[in-house]
């Protein structure tokens, strides 16, 4: 102090100095913060500020088409309009907000002098006026759209209810998460912290701030009228409290509050309903009719194409980012001319997204890129990028063949019903009971899936109007694509690939024969028995007069032969057989939805033992696959051991090309021997898949003139189908179905040629493979002739090849979103 006093003798001057120093110190934090804003954060702020100088106007685009292998359109966009309304208007929040705003603005002069009740009353009056405007909007919308306003109000209530449900579940989850995070940091949330958490979770969700569709498929004229109205405003019925100057300017409110016309498109599926002709004169005797049936198939491709939805989830944006990252060609296309901006980005409110099936897995390719008008506000310069439609994707599926297979497998035609000739194997179902199953038709050379059918299927309409009929049917499971997503024990149809693997590994020598002894182990006559021994007490050795060659074993489906191979291969060998030839264990990534990759693991994860391997040698035990695996197994044998991965997406999805063919390393003479066995199985009178018998006759199972067939039956022991609604184990469980699954696989080619197509059929709990699935497979071979894939003897008047007798009707189930 004394030094200061000496320096500045006057106290007043010392005090002035103090004030000056305080002033300078006061400026320091200001300069520091100014430096932070302009120097440290400056570039970011500049970028944000400049972003406001650009206005983007998005132009609508269309989604790519999905075509079948012959170019027929399975899915396409049709331009249409939808009316969307802001969520705040739907809930009434907008009216309350306007009420508050109007009350303040209109009574600006006296607002400060009013008491709370007076203000509240004013706000209520103005809120009422705004709400009346919203009500008149619903009336106007109804009139313009020619719909009942109450129908629109119902749509509104549905949106609000859905968003509220979503909100409460999301908020509940967020609250739990934040509370547990707080606890994880070692603090019990209370007081301020709790209030802070509540405030954060109360922040509006995107759905609560965006617009929602209240009417779709709006005709063009109505859309244009509404478009004009959406720009208009109209005076509210003025009501003023304590008004001294009545000439106050009129207060205007939007004529259609929060309403916009969204130029959307509707997805339409021209083959949603197909009528095909089925010649019933080719059916097995008991159900043969001398007539051509017109069969209507609804939703033949729903399992494959999937459905759309209108709502955008956060996951969609993430998936799109990942796709663009993974496929540079897609990214380049989507961001061309946009400085890295994605023209395919998702928009809230009325944006269509693929939800399931190919619509979902091909979303990144099918999704159209919007056009954009970029306007620089300060210079007025504009630049336009025209919209680019999404990419067209072509499938390997032949939709007419697909429809035909559906028709064959629809219970109404008789083949997919329990019939007398099916025999007594099937005791759990009465005659006439409809059977469910799946079938796959594979092009042997290319791996193209020509048809993939799972019965029953469902339609988009059904999904929209009665989702329970799709998702809550434990017996029929329409929601599951049984051809690729449901596990089945392979049964005897696996025997061909076991033989191939055994030869490859040298545990089955060329020309080697194996005796059928009735049961595998001499001292255990009740275990590992041959089916012929079990049923008739004899052995194949006795039947055929000696030990069996591999061809003979396949012909008669001898269990002992394949038990023996299973034992020789051991666990590792049998697993390799299923993996190498059928692709068991690796997903196909076909893009049509959930896949069961097949399994060769004991239930519960135990280690495979030699007993398991013995069973797996004949397709039982801890092994499960799907009809696609069955068809692929046979096709691999038909290709002399070359694996070609099956595909459904044929072209158009750039970057998603399928893998190259690979060798399994099977000797071609072995493959020929196995094919010979499969030939005998169908074409030799002793073959297990040669004929069916019924009262009054017998006939060959595969009987298409001009077609050469190789094949195998399978009757696979299956676990009971149980329904366990409460999921708590044995108590309250109900056995819905029991018995064996019926398998039939067939390779078909032209007379004198090689196998061209692999067909697999499984009918659930239907019993004998030859008797139930065999005739169905036969009709599928007929369908291959009808659709021109096999020549047959078309000239004989049985069919004239491509396109015979198929028509498409009722194409327009086009409620895009479903």
């Amino acid at each position, binding site marked *: 102090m004394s030094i200061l006093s000496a320096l500045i003798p006057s*106290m007043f001057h010392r005090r002035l100095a103090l004030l000056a120093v305080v002033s300078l110190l006061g400026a320091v934090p200001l300069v520091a913060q100014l430096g932070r804003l302009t120097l440290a954060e*400056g570039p970011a702020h500049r970028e944000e500020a400049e972003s406001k100088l650009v206005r983007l106007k998005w132009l609508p685009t269309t989604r790519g088409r999905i075509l079948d292998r012959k170019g027929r359109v399975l899915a396409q966009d049709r331009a249409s309009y939808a009316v969307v309304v802001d969520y705040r208007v739907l809930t009434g929040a907008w009216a309350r907000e306007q009420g508050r705003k109007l009350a303040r603005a209109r009574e600006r002069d006296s607002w400060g002098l009013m008491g709370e009740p007076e203000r509240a009353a004013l706000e209520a009056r103005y809120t009422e006026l705004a709400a009346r405007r919203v009500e008149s909007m619903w009336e106007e919308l109804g009139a313009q759209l020619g719909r009942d306003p109450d129908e629109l109000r119902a749509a509104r209530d549905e949106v609000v209810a859905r968003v509220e449900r979503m909100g409460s579940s999301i908020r509940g989850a967020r609250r739990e998460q934040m509370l547990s995070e707080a606890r994880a940091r070692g603090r019990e949330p209370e007081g301020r912290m709790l209030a802070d958490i509540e405030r954060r979770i109360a922040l509006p969700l995107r759905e609560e701030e965006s617009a929602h569709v209240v009417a779709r498929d709006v005709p063009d004229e109505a859309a244009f009228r509404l478009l004009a109205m959406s720009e208009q405003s109209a005076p509210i019925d003025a009501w003023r409290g304590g008004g001294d100057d009545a000439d106050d300017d009129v207060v205007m409110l939007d004529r259609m509050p929060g309403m916009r016309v969204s130029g959307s498109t509707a997805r339409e599926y021209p083959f949603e309903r197909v009528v095909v002709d089925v010649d019933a004169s080719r059916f097995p005797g008991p159900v043969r009719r001398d007539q051509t049936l017109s069969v209507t198939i609804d939703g033949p491709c729903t399992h494959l194409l999937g459905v759309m939805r209108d709502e955008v989830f956060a996951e969609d944006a993430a998936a799109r980012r990942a796709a663009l990252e993974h496929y540079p060609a897609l990214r380049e296309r989507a961001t061309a001319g946009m400085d890295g901006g994605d023209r395919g980005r998702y928009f809230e409110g009325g944006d269509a997204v693929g939800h399931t099936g190919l619509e979902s897995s091909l979303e990144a390719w099918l999704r159209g890129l919007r056009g954009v008008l970029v306007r620089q506000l*300060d210079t007025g310069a504009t630049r336009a990028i025209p919209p680019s439609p999404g990419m067209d994707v072509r499938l390997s599926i032949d939709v007419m063949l697909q429809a035909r297979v559906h028709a064959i497998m629809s219970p109404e035609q008789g083949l997919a019903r329990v019939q007398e000739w099916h025999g007594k194997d099937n005791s759990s179902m009465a005659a006439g009971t409809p059977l469910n199953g799946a079938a796959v038709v594979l092009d042997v050379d290319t791996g193209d899936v020509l048809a993939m059918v799972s019965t029953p299927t469902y339609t988009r309409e059904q999904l929209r109007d009665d989702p329970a009929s799709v998702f809550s049917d434990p017996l029929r499971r329409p929601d599951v694509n049984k051809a690729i997503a449901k596990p089945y024990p392979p049964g005897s149809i696996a025997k061909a690939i076991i033989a191939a693997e055994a030869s490859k590994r040298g545990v089955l020598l060329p020309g080697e024969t194996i005796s059928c002894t009735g049961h595998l182990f001499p001292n255990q006559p009740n275990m590992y028995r041959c089916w012929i021994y079990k049923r008739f007490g004899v052995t194949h050795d006795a039947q055929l007069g000696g030990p069996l060659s591999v061809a003979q074993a396949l012909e008669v489906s001898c269990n002992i032969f394949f038990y023996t191979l299973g034992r020789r291969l051991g666990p590792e060998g049998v697993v390799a057989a299923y993996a190498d030839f059928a692709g068991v264990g690796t997903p196909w990534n076909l893009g049509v939805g959930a896949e069961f990759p097949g399994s060769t693991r004991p239930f519960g994860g135990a280690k495979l033992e030699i007993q398991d391997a013995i069973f797996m040698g004949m397709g039982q035990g801890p092994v499960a696959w799907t009809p696609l695996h069955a068809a692929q197994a046979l096709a691999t044998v038909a290709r002399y051991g070359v694996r070609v991965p099956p595909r459904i997406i044929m072209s158009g999805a750039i970057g998603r090309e399928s893998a190259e063919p690979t060798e399994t390393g099977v000797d071609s003479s072995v493959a020929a021997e196995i094919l010979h066995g499969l030939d005998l199985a169908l074409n030799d009178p002793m073959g297990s898949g040669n004929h069916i018998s019924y009262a009054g006759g017998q006939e060959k199972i595969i009987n298409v003139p001009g077609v050469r067939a190789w094949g195998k039956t399978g009757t696979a022991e299956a676990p009971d189908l149980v329904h366990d609604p409460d999921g708590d184990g044995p108590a309250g469980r109900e056995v819905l179905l029991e018995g064996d699954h019926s398998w039939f696989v067939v390779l078909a080619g032209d007379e004198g040629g090689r196998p061209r197509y692999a067909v697999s059929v499984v009918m659930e709990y239907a019993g004998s493979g030859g008797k139930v699935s065999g005739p169905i497979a036969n009709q599928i071979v007929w369908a291959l002739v009808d659709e021109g894939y096999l020549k047959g003897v078309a000239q004989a008047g049985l069919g004239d090849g491509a396109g015979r007798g198929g028509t498409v009707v009722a194409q327009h189930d086009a409620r895009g979103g479903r």
Partner: protein
Amino acid sequence: MLSVLVRGGYSGEKAVSSLRAANWAWLTIGAALALSVLGVYAIDVARASEPHAEFDLAATAWKQVVFLIIGMLAAVVVSLPHIRLVGPLSYLGMALSVGLLVFLLLPGVPTWLVTPRNGARGWINLGVVDLQPAELAKIASVLSAAWYMRFRDSHRELKGLIVPALFAGAPMALIILQPDLGSAMLFAPAILAMLVAAGARLRHIALVLGVGAVLVPASYPLMKEHQRARIVALIEQVRGDRSRADTINFQSFTAQTIAGAGEWGGVSDAKSRALVRYNGLPERHNDMVFSVIVNRFGFAGGVVTLGLYLVWTAGALLTAATCRDPFGRLVCVGLTAFILAQVFVNVGMNIGILPIIGITLPYVSYGGSSMLATWLMAGLVMNVALHKPVRHRRRSFEYDGDDA
């Protein structure tokens, strides 16, 4: 007559030669003029989206030029009469100001005369311009407190602080009732600075500040909902929580964006106009004009602007230091504190470290009352600098013992 006015009634010298033409107050006047011109330009940038186009928007800037001229004329008028003649009018001015502030609050006053703005009854409609009595009350408060303390030493006692505090407290209370908490707050630093300058014990001042530091947060529960919301919003904003960037914090975040976009040296004239307009900064010609200046001239421009206020302060404090008249000394200190407090609060709210309250930036923000009041302040500083003391006075505000 004029001569008598200027010389304060003492004969002997001519009116003009009695003045000290070379004085420190020219710093204050120069800074005020520079800031005013900067303000006119900034207002034009804020209001006209394109240079030399849209004439009607630039009209705001032209009006500001008129206010500037009126303000400077008023400054000349108050700078001339001798301080001895100004002083006795202090209490009258105070009475008048308080009267006007009371008038604003009277229940029967018609709304055409007192029109609430943003809910505050702070303006009297005079037809051509609106008068904000709070601006005049600032000056009256400084003058009357200075007049009261000029010969006393009672403020060396703790209880002696009470009467000077009333000169600030009375207008403060009336302004809080308008309600305009922001303007009212500015009175506190002014009276505190005057007390410090007048030799009040620093431990008393510290005590007052300490009590204030406790009482202000304690007043949070008594605040109105919108005031609390502002404070909560400020805390979020300082934490970087952008959740309300589109609602309550929109103005603040936009101001920060606009200011930050200036980076080191600012953007071009045309670019600045576009950025300010299309970012939709509210009150950009008014309370938020500092952000516009920083946008246009960058960090450098912001620092220069702050520097001009420090020049203003230097001029006023040096005038006080060289003045021998106790009344003149305190007037300079009080006015400086008003200006600086207003600058700090306004700049603070522009760059996001203080809540948005309706405080203008002196000389720069658009507005007649503000321009008039701040130029009157500059004029009074010049008045103190121009006039020699009328007679040899004893040394004022010098006390024995330590400063504390």
